[in-house]
């Protein structure tokens, strides 16, 4: 027990408490000094720039989550229904790219989507376009591509595990009771994999809402997210109080969303493994 508690306190609780404390500090052009003022929070509420960015970040994270789900569910189903040595081969094929740093995996989209990238070269050589397509990179769309690619495994894995836990006899029982394949999917497979879907959605949403590298590398100016803003408060503006306040605000909003969502989609089951 004790080492676990100590770990949580030192590396979990303490940084969060410190962050909350910093968010009340006073910031000036000379730096950030300990104090207890609401200046940073007041600015977040007053300046549309911050609120707009928070809303945009939540929207982007939600859409990235949805896109991940659309990509991951069929993939998880495919993996869960393979057998024997092919299952192992496919699993490795899906997992191996994720042994590479996510920075590299994000970076790899530059030579694909870029002005002289793979896609543009293909389009040019096929004569489909006369000049390179400019809108592939440095916008919101490119950020979605990057986020989905980088985080999709966090969606695929829990769904794959949930599908793997479904007793195949239940699918037979469903067919035996007259359910056509899509009815079996709708009434048996989907509800039983729901905890996996929820875990995956929560994981990807949490990762996407705090994304920093992906919008930084692929987003240009229009694809910027709150993570980039927070980073710049700490790194370039030297305004720790503002950075901390934005972080705390984001955590607060996401926490509230999870609580509300938990009322009607059973988030508790995700964290307790389905036991009540």
């Amino acid at each position, binding site marked *: 027990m004790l080492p676990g508690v100590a770990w949580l306190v030192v590396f979990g609780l303490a940084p969060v408490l410190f962050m909350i404390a910093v968010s009340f500090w006073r910031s000036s052009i000379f730096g950030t000094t300990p104090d207890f003022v609401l200046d940073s929070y007041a600015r977040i509420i007053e300046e549309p720039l911050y609120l707009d960015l928070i809303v945009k970040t939540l929207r982007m994270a939600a859409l990235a989550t949805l896109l991940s789900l659309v990509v991951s569910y069929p993939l998880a189903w495919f993996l869960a229904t393979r057998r024997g040595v092919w299952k192992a081969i496919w699993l490795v094929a899906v997992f191996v790219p994720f042994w590479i740093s996510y920075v590299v995996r994000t970076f790899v989209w530059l030579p694909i989507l870029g002005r002289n990238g793979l896609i543009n070269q293909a389009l040019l050589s096929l004569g489909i376009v006369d000049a390179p397509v400019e809108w592939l990179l440095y916008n919101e769309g490119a950020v979605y591509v990057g986020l989905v690619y980088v985080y999709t495994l966090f969606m695929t894995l829990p769904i794959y595990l949930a599908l793997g836990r479904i*007793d195949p*006899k*239940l699918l*037979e*029982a*469903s*067919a*035996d*009771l*007259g*359910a*056509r394949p899509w*009815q079996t999917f709708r*009434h*048996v497979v989907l*509800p*039983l994999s729901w905890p996996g879907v929820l875990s995956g959605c929560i994981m990807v949403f949490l990762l996407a809402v705090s994304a920093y590298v992906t919008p930084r590398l692929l987003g240009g100016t229009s694809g910027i997210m709150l993570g980039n803003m927070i980073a710049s408060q700490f790194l370039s503006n030297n305004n720790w109080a503002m950075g901390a306040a934005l972080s705390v605000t984001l955590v607060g909003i996401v926490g509230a969303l999870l609580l509300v969502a938990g009322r009607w989609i059973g988030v508790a089951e995700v964290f307790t493994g389905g036991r009540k």
Partner: protein
Amino acid sequence: MPREDREAAAGAVAVAIRKVGKRFGSVAALDDVSLDIRRGEFFSLLGPSGCGKTTLLRSIGGFEAPTEGDILIEGRSVLHLAPYERPTNMIFQHLALFPHLGVRDNVGFGLRMKGADRAETARRVQEVLRLVRLEEYGDRRVDQLSGGQRQRVAMARALVNDPAVLLLDEPLGALDLQLRLQMQEELRRLQRQLGATFVFVTHDQGEAMAMSDRIAVMNAGRLQQVGTPAEIYERPANRFVATFVGHANLVEARLTGRRQDGFAEAVSADGLAFLGQAPPHAGARDAVLAVLRHEKLRVHPSDTVQAGVAASVVERTYMGSSLRFTCRAQGGAILTADTPNDMPGRDIAEGAAVLLDWSPADVVFLTE
């Protein structure tokens, strides 16, 4: 039209299995199986594990595709139909109740899939829950039920669809003995009450005997014998049936003569003389296997009767309701007798000299 096809068409036959074979590579799980299951009958498929009984049941339900032959339900070939298109319902070995649905939704699943209207579904579900005596449990989750109650939910979930044939894949296997006997009775009651056709797979011969109108004994993918429990028990068709169903003395012998009264005489290598039912297609001096059930062999203390085969008791085993005497007859043949615990001979000790006798009507000669 061959006779069996006419019968099927006339509707007396619920399921017709025609020369069905199922091969996994070079292994035959089913080999040339043909049988008719009559409408409204409780029919059991009995055999040891791996004998093909479950494969046959799953072939009827549509979960296995036979590689040879045909299966007809109500006179129509069903081989091209998916499980959800067949007029059958299955009770699975481990029940396969839907864990995410309550009792009522489990039972109503089939009706909902077929798009039955809500009120009608609710009415039918309640009716079937009453039939299986679970009307108070509709709102429970399935993991809140006892083993016997889960069993009843599985029955209700299948029966609510009013299947032409109900397939039961050893559903009682996981229950303890008392509950098992209770559920056997329950299944039998339901089957009689509904007049439905039940096809029941089991490896338990006692269960098959107690419940079935007719039994098909299977071994190694082949049909061994089809008949009523009494026919199977009293007139086993071959060595496998004689040993798998009940306990029997099996003695290799050779026919020595045939009598006017329909009995035949045979003598074993160690000189034991048998009188028994004459085998229909045996030559005058053919080798036969004499089958005599343990409980048909009577043991008498040698001072109480005049005639019989002299023997000595090698082993006496107390089995509660009965006693088992293993005896060595003069000449060396070992014969086993099961004697009810209230018979006069119950006090016979090991080593005692006894006389054995039996009725010729209880001896079956098998030609192999």
